[in-house]
């Protein structure tokens, strides 16, 4: 029953909130953390780091072939050019490009590893058991749940970030975007397209993903 579930959820939240408060008080008393530092980090990941960083990288790659080459050869260096230094999750970023013949999608089956510095923190679905277990065994079906249909002839590569490397998908540039500025292109690069569960948006599309013929 929804009511019962909500009550349990609330009381679990209350318990967790109390524990976190206790944990923080202990750690502050031990001189291990500082409340202001915590505020900074929360602010960083709520307001300053997010998928728009990655979208800028992708849009640049679409318009600048030399940058695209550098991005594919050395992700962290190229990303750093745009002013996004690596975050606490590490410096090992690999960018994988989608082509008409190959479509890439990323997962962390073990936990929730994600390229924070270019995408911010992962959405709940990315960390969920159904996504993590099903995308490796039935990627086409999972992509369909995100509205993405891929032709059977397209090869799908699922990247399981089980070690230190974090993957960022370079989606294909949508058709009909030749005249668009880099700023306009940024708007077409959704977070989901950089994870690989969707394509980039078409110009004029209402936010959904592009359907392949």
């Amino acid at each position, binding site marked *: 029953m929804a009511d019962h579930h909500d009550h349990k959820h609330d009381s679990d939240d209350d318990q967790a909130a109390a524990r976190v408060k206790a944990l923080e008080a202990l750690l502050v008393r*031990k*001189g*291990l*953390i*500082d409340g*202001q*530092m915590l505020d*900074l*980090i929360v602010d*960083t990941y709520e307001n300053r780091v997010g998928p728009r960083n990655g979208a800028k990288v992708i849009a640049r790659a679409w318009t600048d072939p030399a940058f695209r080459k550098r991005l594919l050869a050395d992700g962290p260096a190229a990303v750093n050019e745009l002013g996004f*230094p690596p975050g606490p999750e590490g410096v*090992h970023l*690999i960018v994988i490009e989608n082509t008409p013949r190959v479509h890439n999608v990323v997962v962390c*089956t*073990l936990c929730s590893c994600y390229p924070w510095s270019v995408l911010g923190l992962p959405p709940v679905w990315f960390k969920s058991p159904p996504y993590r277990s099903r995308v*490796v*065994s039935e*990627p*086409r079906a999972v992509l369909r749940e995100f509205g993405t249909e891929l032709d*059977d*002839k*397209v*090869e*799908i*590569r*699922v*990247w*399981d*970030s*089980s*070690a*230190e*490397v974090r993957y960022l998908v370079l989606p294909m540039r949508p058709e009909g975007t030749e005249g668009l500025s880099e700023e306009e292109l940024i708007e077409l690069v959704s977070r989901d397209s950089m994870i690989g569960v969707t394509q980039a948006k078409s110009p004029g599309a209402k936010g959904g993903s592009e359907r392949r013929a």
Partner: protein
Amino acid sequence: MGGKDGFGPIPIEENEPVFHADWERRMYGIGRLVLTKRLLLLDEFRHAIERIPPAVYLNATYYEKWMLGLYTILIEKGLATPDEIKGGLPVELLPTVRLKPTAKASVPRVKPRFKKGDAILTRNFISRLHTRMPRYAHGKHGVIHADEGIFPLPDTWAHGGGPNAQHVYAVRFSARELWGENASPREFVYIDLWEDYLEPGRGKSTRRRAGS
């Protein structure tokens, strides 16, 4: 703690922490510098901090802990004697640390066992110690896609068993290998695996022979 700044500007990071005293800011910068310059591994630094006696540890602020950790390492690596540290010299020593090649705790040069195109077979672990190989990938045939570099093995390192640094590879598995004959022939899973998890596989290697 006095001494001259002999090693250039200390880089300021985006989210610089709050410092309560000037020496804390310098300690932070020193700590960052030695880590960035790979004079020691984060793990060594961390372990040194952990070995601070509890009575001291619980009362020390975190920059005091950094200081103590760094002193410990300087002494253990033979870069400073306890007397020198008592005399307040360690800051002057840092340029020396930077110049001495033996002071560098660089990533160990370990030869890779595999290269792109090699056929491999993943091992079949029973124990729960080997945590970074997803269950679905145990005992499967795959092909090395890329060598991603050298990393410490978390199975041992995070449990106090030493870094055991080795190559990590992106390995390509076909869906049919992982899920059975009914899977699509056009789906593949790439998993990043430590060398210890892999054995040479029998079967066709896709590596081009020299001269062909």
